């Protein structure tokens, strides 16, 4: 078994919560050469180690916590990746989060954690370099994410620990519960919080003081510095430094015609002016914050200075997605309510994107008389009612009452349960709520939602090769915003060169594209095995294909049948999949995924 010369430590932690056994698993260098880390490695390990058709909320599901090779080195803008089988969609889940946990993790000297089983009572995992222990979390159970982080640092008497925590939503196994890092950063999509909750795992506390080995230090640091400059100097991203991604809210409304408002009933919402970056700048923002070694500082921390009910609220945001889903999508006109909604999602440990979608969907069902106040415990869930939305966030997290029970299902299951016309207004792909960009107004986004391997997510890539790039980012575990465009558009080979000098490898530039295809195809065969995913599932919600946008810059636009067909055909052709979206035997062979042959033959 070969050990990498750098970038990895060659070992992972294996934690079986059922037995309390903690062990070391030696990792062969070849698996890293083939799958790198994060997304790619996660897809591969899940395929190999998860028994087919495992119930995602059962103890058998596996939670992989995976920093990448670049974490903790001089590489800019690294994050933390987690992979598991999603309880929300039943397919592959990869979720990434910024903040300090990813690098801290790497400095502990482990390449990742494989969490299995279920603890008998609430537990949290402490990783302090080589010292790893499971501790009782009974006192933390029920606490929000902020309180949990503070309580852990107090209990460990060390505020240098970084934490990965779940809130009440994860404890209650809401299938779109997220995992929170650094109080306001969320590994949002696909329900990782519910997987942790189902394992009785409240948190992971991490402190590392080691250095990541580097094969050729001088060459690597030079490349990493160049890579950082490339991140910093993308002309199109300069505004993101100043205005965060929230600055795109006004742009999406007035220019792109792709803003999401009132559950995708329209993309024209001039009141965005009271919810977007300019308003945040006037009454909320105070500081820029950045992930480790990132020159973008796209996050904005603020304190509400509106003099209203939530005066003094401290939070991070809004980002484009959170601001839209908890703001314009709910038909709000006040910044204060939207910001409180976002903060409440972070504290409860709910994916803000899915939560905003779900509440917006319920509001439309109320508007159309398909849901009655009696179905919602009397809450007046109407567009524009911020208080009702905030109350609903808390109810969802606790699955409280009829409303909490219903809305915590997520859009697909709600539509299935309600039946009738409800599915007409259900906006999701593969069971995943879509992320704040209307693909009628901005068609490339349709590729991300329809073709991405975890359903309606915005971090999947807007073109076939763009998805390979994003899968690379999520495998090398760098930020898709800060690194995808600057590296891939100008010099994708830089990633291979960095890995060569970091790990002592001999990758060639063209390997970049082959490996990108491997990561995505590995996730695809997992999805085929688990849920029979094929062409029929690579589609957008019916509203996108039948209802033209009623107003705004892209008035009349619709995602046509031809658009769908072209999107699918181009994608399958690029990845070497057949017309039904199943990887061909030749493709599997060329990508070293022969092991999936049985499964694709049956599909």
């Amino acid at each position, binding site marked *: 078994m070969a050990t990498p010369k750098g970038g990895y430590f060659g070992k992972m932690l294996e934690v079986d919560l059922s037995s309390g056994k903690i062990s070391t698993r030696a990792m062969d260098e070849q698996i890293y050469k083939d799958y790198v880390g994060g997304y790619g490695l996660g897809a591969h390990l899940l395929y190999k180690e998860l028994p087919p058709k495992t119930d995602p909320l059962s103890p058998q599901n596996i939670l992989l916590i995976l920093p990448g090779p670049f974490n*903790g*080195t*001089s590489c800019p803008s690294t994050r933390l990746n987690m992979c598991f089988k999603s309880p929300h969609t039943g397919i592959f889940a990869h979720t990434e989060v910024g903040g*300090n946990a990813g690098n801290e993790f790497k*400095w502990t000297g482990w390449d990742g954690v494989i969490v299995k089983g279920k603890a008998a009572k609430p537990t949290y995992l402490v990783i302090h370099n080589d010292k790893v222990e499971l501790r009782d979390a009974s006192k933390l159970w029920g606490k*929000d994410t*902020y309180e949990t*982080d*503070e309580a852990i640092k107090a209990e460990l008497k060390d*505020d240098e620990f970084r934490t990965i925590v779940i809130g009440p939503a994860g404890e209650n196994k809401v299938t779109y519960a997220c995992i929170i890092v*650094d*109080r*306001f950063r969320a590994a949002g999509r696909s329900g990782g919080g519910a997987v942790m909750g189902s394992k009785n795992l409240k948190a992971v506390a991490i402190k*590392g*003081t*080691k*250095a*990541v*080995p*580097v094969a050729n*230090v*001088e060459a690597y*640091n030079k490349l990493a510095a160049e890579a950082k400059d490339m991140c*910093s100097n993308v002309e199109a991203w*300069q505004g993101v*430094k*100043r205005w965060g991604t929230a600055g795109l809210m006004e742009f999406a409304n007035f220019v792109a015609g792709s803003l999401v408002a009132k559950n995708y009933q329209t993309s024209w919402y001039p009141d965005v002016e009271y919810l977007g970056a300019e308003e945040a700048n006037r009454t909320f923002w*105070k*500081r*820029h*914050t*950045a*992930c*480790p*070694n*990132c*020159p973008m*500082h796209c996050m904005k*921390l603020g*304190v*509400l200075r509106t003099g209203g009910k*939530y*005066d*003094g*609220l*401290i939070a991070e945001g809004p980002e484009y997605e959170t601001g839209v889903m908890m703001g314009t999508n709910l038909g709000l006109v006040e910044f204060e309510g939207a910001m409180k909604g976002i*903060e409440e999602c972070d*504290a409860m440990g709910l994916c803000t994107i899915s939560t905003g979608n779900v509440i917006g969907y319920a509001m439309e069902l109320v508007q159309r008389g398909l849901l009655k106040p009696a179905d919602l415990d009397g809450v007046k869930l109407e567009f524009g009612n911020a208080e009702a939305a905030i109350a609903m966030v808390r109810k969802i997290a606790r699955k409280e009452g009829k409303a909490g029970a219903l809305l915590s299902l997520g859009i697909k299951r709600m539509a299935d349960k309600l039946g009738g016309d409800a599915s007409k207004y259900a906006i999701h792909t593969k069971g995943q709520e879509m992320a704040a960009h209307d693909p009628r107004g901005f068609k490339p986004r349709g590729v991300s939602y329809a073709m991405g391997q975890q359903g309606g997510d915005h971090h999947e890539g807007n073109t076939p090769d763009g998805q390979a790039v994003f899968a690379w980012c999520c495998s090398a575990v760098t930020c898709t915003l800060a690194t995808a465009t600057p590296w891939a558009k100008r010099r994708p080979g830089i990633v291979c060169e960095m890995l060569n000098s970091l790990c002592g490898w001999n990758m060639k530039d063209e390997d970049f594209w082959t490996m990108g295809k491997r990561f995505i195809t590995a996730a695809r065969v997992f999805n085929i095995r688990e849920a029979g995913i094929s062409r029929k599932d690579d589609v957008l919600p019916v509203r996108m294909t039948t209802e033209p946008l009623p107003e705004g810059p892209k008035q009349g636009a619709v995602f046509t049948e031809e658009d769908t067909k072209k999107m699918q055909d181009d994608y399958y052709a690029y990845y070497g999949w057949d017309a039904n979206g199943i990887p061909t035997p030749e493709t599997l062979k060329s990508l070293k995924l022969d092991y999936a042959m049985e499964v694709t033959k049956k599909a």
Partner: protein
Amino acid sequence: MSESKEGQKGEVVQVTLDRRGFVKGSFTLVGGMLLAIEASKLVGPGLLFAADAPGKLKPEEMMKYLYAVREGCTGCRSCEYACSMYHNNGLVRPSVSAVHVKKYKNVIDIPMICWHCEDAPCVKACPTTPQAIVKDKETNIIKYIDDKTCLGAKCNKCIEACPSGFLRRHPDTGWPIFCDLCGGDPQCVKACQAQATDTAPVLSTAKKGFGVNLAYRNVNVKDAAEGLMQTLYYPNTDGGRR
């Protein structure tokens, strides 16, 4: 003692202060002139650096200090990366970086730097003879003699003595980690300035003078954090949820 100088109208005036505790004194900005109310002695023009000048070095060479405008810190930790790479064979290892960025309630990032105190409390606390650390008048650094002279983990008196909580123990050896100003070319400053393409950089080098080597000297992490909470997040100064 503190020294100060009154300048001509509109001219920037340097004030040298080297008495601990003076930080609690008050300053007023009058008509473009910095006036140290508490200053007891005025010195003539040109004498500003005379007291310490050893002759050979130019004042700007010897007067290097680190300075931080902490309000703008993004918590990017580029400074820690740079410091550890420079002193650790090119490897990133924030746990051995001299400069370190503390997170408080996950809403404040406080870059902790050495103020290179004139009458450094860390030096005063060092029990060995000869002392394992000395204030180097030429470079301004607290010079760490060597691992043999220093008692390391069983002592760490310097760490306890540093009023701003800057000093930390090396996680492997227990020796204190001092800032050597990178031999006169602070890497943390370069890194901070490079990442600050559209914000004001937080770290800089500055000559000894008003606000420098002085402003934060008695301010530990908690005080600094609470001060910043006041400044940045009023009315929510405890940082809790609302």
